[in-house]
């Protein structure tokens, strides 16, 4: 939760009128001033339920709805403090959207909420199977004559990986999900590097 922790609030009283406020409230119920963003996960930030499966149209709708409330354009005539709150809020909403939009980052965030950190590569290095796969693929990418073929094969592999990931996460097999995430991390990186070299 390193992303939202940046904005951890030291108290939950309104900065303006000192009225007590619940963390989930954007504005003060007494004086309507926009508050500093409270620490919360990205699903909460966009008022979405914490689950991996997410319709992109639903995410986008939630994103626009939240931005419409907190974007700095809505606070032009206000005090500097409130304007700063709007910038901080709007940044959090942008960050939440960016993470949830990306299926891999969303999965990692989902696991982080469950207390599993997948940001360090350490564990993946003990996965002998993955290491073998990586060696084979590195050779393939290096030596293959058919660039289009490799590109297509990689994309298929990633696509398949994501559908397995989705099944695993809804089935709550978290250790298996972690394994798949490390694979997907590797393959998407490989595809990125590959497309970059192509251009």
């Amino acid at each position: 939760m390193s992303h939202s922790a940046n904005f951890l609030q030291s108290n939950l009283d309104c900065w303006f009128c000192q009225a007590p406020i619940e963390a989930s409230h954007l504005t003060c119920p007494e004086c309507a001033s926009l508050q500093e963003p409270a620490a919360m996960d990205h699903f909460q930030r966009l008022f979405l339920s914490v689950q991996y499966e997410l319709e992109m149209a639903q995410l986008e709708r939630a994103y626009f709805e939240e931005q419409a409330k907190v974007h700095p354009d809505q606070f032009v005539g206000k005090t500097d403090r409130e304007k700063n709150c709007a910038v901080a809020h709007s940044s959090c909403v942008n960050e939440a959207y960016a993470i949830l939009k990306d299926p891999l980052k969303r999965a990692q965030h989902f696991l982080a909420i469950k207390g599993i950190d997948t940001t360090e590569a350490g564990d993946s290095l003990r996965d002998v199977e993955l290491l073998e796969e990586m060696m084979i693929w590195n050779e393939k990418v290096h030596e293959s004559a058919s660039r289009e073929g490799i590109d297509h094969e990689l994309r298929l592999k990633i696509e398949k990986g994501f559908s397995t990931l989705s099944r695993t996460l809804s089935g709550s097999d978290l250790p298996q999900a972690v394994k798949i995430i490390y694979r997907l991390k590797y393959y998407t990186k490989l595809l990125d590097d590959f497309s970059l070299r192509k251009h």
Partner: protein
Amino acid sequence: MRLLQIHEPGQTPDLHEEGRGYVVGIDLGTTNSVVAYSEEQMPRTLSSESGASLLPSIVSFQEDLQPKVGEASSPLTIRSVKRLMGLGRKELEQLQSSHSFHLSEDISEDDSLVYLKVGDRRVTPQEVSAEILRDLKKRAEVQLEGNVDRCVLTVPAHFDEAARKATKDAAKLAGMEVLRLINEPTAAALAYGLENGVEGIYAVYDLGGGTFDVSLLKLQKGVFQVLATGGDPALGGDDFDVFVLDSLLELHGKRSKDFAPSTVSSFLSIVRCGKEELTSRDVCHVSFPLPEGEIKCSLSRSKLEELISDSVERTLKICREVLQTVSLNPAEVQGVILVGGSTRIPYVQKAVSKCFEQDPYGNVNPDEVVAHGAAIQAEALTSGAQTLLLDVTPLSLGVEIMGEMVDKIIPRNSPIPASKSHEFTTSQDGQTAMAIHIVQGEREFVKDCRSLGRFELRGIPPMGAGKARIKVQFTVDADGLLSVSAREETTGAAQSIDVRPTYGLTQTDMEKILAESYLNGSDDIRSRLLLESKIKLEADLNVLSGSLKTETELLNKSEFSDLTTLVEKGNIVLRSSNREEVEAFRKLLDKETCFYAERQISSALKRLGTGTKKP
């Protein structure tokens, strides 16, 4: 004054709101500038008294150094000043048209800024731009029959931090508050999208006099979301003119570098007229007046196309990159909107059609659509925004790490506002300060990026090497401008940050320029400042005398009579025509009423039942 801070929100957040003037949208262009005003989402261009909608971005200094905007009426004429905005001397060398500017040589070693030479003075590009803005402001005030004090200003999407700041400073010098900087292609999409009620993914191809931008936007009901943007802040019609001029002079065994900057500048405007003629004709004739006789040349459309083909190809390459960034095929783009005078060139239109596999829209006025978008946004910001404008940052922001490499913190095309934190630690035992270098750009090495500033973190609690955890928060606001704050995490101690901008004007520079107001020649700035000070003092006095009536119980007798005398004195000072005197009295008032303000705050807090004063 402190007393003001305890007002309820919404009651008096702004001293001037009642008597506030109009808010306009301004497109400060390289070649032409436009001011527009919008009511009920219907934008219109505010023309000059003679009916001209475009104001040529030309400033001529007369013999007495008085500026005249919009025409080349003296040998001391500055064109295309926008190209110099935010530039350092290093960047200037890469500018094609650099030798058409009369630059000041009077610069010291540590001076990284570019100055223009006007008579015996050095003038910043900000001040020259301010003259253009002042003229637009006047034009708007005549049309609207009222005061214009705020604006939404457009900038090329690819303007960097320094150029954005410089543009904002120019508006300040012209006596306008900038409510928002918006990117030119975004403004164009806003005006076009609202007028035509379109939805889907649109590309804006904006090739102006000095800059090129391409933005991809997703338009849907009330939301204008920029998906990605690309561009080149130093590519535009001006460069085409330079290519043409050089090629024509070469035929006569001459080079533009042999001529004085003012001569080059006037040659370039002759070339521009020829180039514009070629939009509808196959060949044109131009002649350059010289003391030894005229040089007459003819220029064909095919020659022009040959000369600009590399530049146009560069813009297409950027278009393809932007499409790739968001994984889109040209066919998925619903429509292409052309903006900027250089898109009138048939060759450019053909190239864009080919790149996006479709004909661009022909029903857009490429000169005015940007100002119209700015005006719509100006209206939205002041009367409650119904539209949501979500833009991105065009350039990556990073810090210098070991080996003069760049560590990117906020990558380009991130939606703004964006806020990211980065943790730093100390490398020596007991270290209490460290320097951080912030850069902007896409390259891996510091030397290839633009230096934005060096920040010094001080007051780090002495600890073992690597123990301190200093979290630095980088925030890019909705204008695309950066701010930085820092905190030591283990102790929670806030750090003081010294910002030393590599480019741009410091607050002191701004004040100096305002005070000198030499470009003005009149004292309208001085009188405006005086008026502002007086308005502030008057408001302060009103608050104080109000409090003296309602919160008398917080004062003893002698305090009450002291403060009452102070109000009387203040009302006399209000008649002064000396700003220093007014300001000095405001300071005195602040000092003398500080204790009263504190008592009021704590009494207000007690009434709220918390009893403690929050920091």
